[in-house]
């Protein structure tokens, strides 16, 4: 095994080994005695290989907003705003109408004030008509 490792190491240092031979060399080094430094070094490479970043999911296209989605969102927003403005306008007109009607109602009520006390004045239409009331003229003719 020692000869095999030495041969592979020599080839390795010359940069002539294939990936399969390098794998074999590492495996032999881990199993054999001697070659302490080389073994330690390859264990260090294994330790470096084992270092991983924290797990994260890849970003997805669904997470981003596409152009058509942006256009649709703007249209919905514009539609919503237009509807809101129109609705507000209608409500404003309704409020104004209701206020005018209340004002008319108030005027009407105020104009009615005092009219009952003037009811007696209705009788004044008879002031110049005593002859009609008592039918005086007719009686005189008779």
């Amino acid at each position, binding site marked *: 095994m020692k000869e095999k490792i030495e041969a592979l190491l020599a080839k390795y240092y010359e940069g002539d080994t294939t990936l399969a031979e390098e794998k074999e060399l590492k495996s032999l080094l881990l199993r054999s005695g001697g070659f302490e430094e080389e073994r330690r070094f390859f264990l260090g490479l*294994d*330790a470096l290989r084992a270092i991983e970043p924290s797990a994260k999911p890849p970003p997805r296209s669904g997470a981003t907003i596409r152009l058509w989605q942006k256009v649709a969102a703007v249209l919905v927003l514009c539609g919503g705003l237009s509807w809101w403005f129109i609705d507000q306008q209608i409500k404003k007109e309704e409020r104004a109408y209701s206020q005018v009607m209340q004002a008319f109602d108030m005027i009407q009520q105020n104009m009615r004030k005092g009219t009952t006390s003037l009811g007696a004045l209705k009788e004044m239409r008879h002031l110049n008509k005593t002859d009609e009331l008592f039918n005086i003229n007719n009686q005189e003719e008779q």
Partner: protein
Amino acid sequence: MKTFFEASIWPLRGKLYRMAYLWLKDRDNAEDAVQEALEKAWSKREMLQKLDNPTGWLVRVLKNQSLQKIREHKRWTVLREGEELSEVEELPAEADSPALQLVFRFLKELPEKQQEIFQLREVEGLTYEEISEYLGISMEQVKVNLFRARKSLQLFMLKNQKR
């Protein structure tokens, strides 16, 4: 069905993270740099899909993000034009296992390009072709740099054995 990003870019996360960790020597910073690089890749995923070598593009972005982090971290140090990422001196705080310390001590002795190629081969187990794609360099450059890195490793081992 997986998208291009999920199938070709996201699986590189572990390798990119270890590359950034090698440069930055700090897990949190490495994770941030990878996250930022992947966010850029996500925002340009349609363009990336048309590229011949999206991995090379991503590694370049990651390197830039890592350099930026080093500049932020060492704001008081004036970095010269073309300064290398490998010039980050300190060993990672968590490299307390003697085996990992040994690896980092060796890598620190290598020039940046050799560091990257050595890591991609020895840690990630990539072929020469894949490494040339990752780093956007020729296969010949990969072979030459790996040969030099391994020669340095041989000397490093000899030095360590003599101690």
